[in-house]
């Protein structure tokens, strides 16, 4: 749940998402769910000429499994906290495996 927990803190931030088929979409992260599906508002498709089917799209639901990268605003990430959260997650996983 670490990534879910993490992305939840980025709601209403502007992110750029690169899909596994190379489409890059910038927009406001409205919501994320446990599968890391992403809802983007006010989207802006980079290289729109190549993807005419997205030309009139304003909001988007992106399935988590097709996301390659999410580019996020650095200032909105608490790195120390994230490190600790990662440690906890690792400890949890180790605890569960046992």
């Amino acid at each position, binding site marked *: 749940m670490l990534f879910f927990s993490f992305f939840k803190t980025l709601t209403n931030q502007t992110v750029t998402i690169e899909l596994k088929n190379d489409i890059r979409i910038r927009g406001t992260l409205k919501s994320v769910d446990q599968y890391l599906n992403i809802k983007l508002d006010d989207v802006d498709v980079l290289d729109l000429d190549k993807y005419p*089917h997205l030309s009139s799209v304003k909001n988007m639901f992106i*399935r988590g499994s097709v996301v390659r990268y999410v580019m996020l605003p650095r200032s909105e990430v608490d790195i120390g906290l994230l490190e600790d959260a990662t440690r906890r997650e690792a400890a949890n996983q180790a605890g569960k495996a046992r």
Partner: protein
Amino acid sequence: MPAPESNMERLPMNENPAGAHHGNAPQGFPPQNNTLGPMSQGPPQLPPQMFTTAAQLLDLTDKKLVLVLRDGRKLIGVLRSWDQFANLVLQDTIERLYAGNLYADIPRGIFLVRGENVLLLGEIDLDKEDDIPPHIQRASFQEVFELKKKEDGARKVGDKKRHGKLQTLGFEPEHSGEILF
């Protein structure tokens, strides 16, 4: 030596500034009441409901959408129903075929799409949908279909080459066996 306490980096759960005098048992932690009384006020977090697939699809219900499937198909229709797996029901669907600078529409009807095949789901701006980008032209289905077949073939060959090269370097293809676009 200045005392840069003020710009010390923020530390998680660190209620006291570092360097403050402490005994071995830190002060400032009142006894915890872990029972959740009816009046307890949690931190002002967003409701967990916001972070569900349901919340994401709620706004898209009964809207005209473009659905891109993992095999690259583009369907345009009205989202009528869905569930937590993002399985979808689309009504009055057309499939729009793109190839080169051409496109063609094929009326399809009702779709029930299994969630795992969904790539993205975009809400169409009704005011903008008729502004087809100027470099794109409508053509007959046959024409677009033939062109697309050619394009797909060419891309498949290219992908195979690329994957072959990457695999020798130890990279497994990101979406092995599937055409994703």
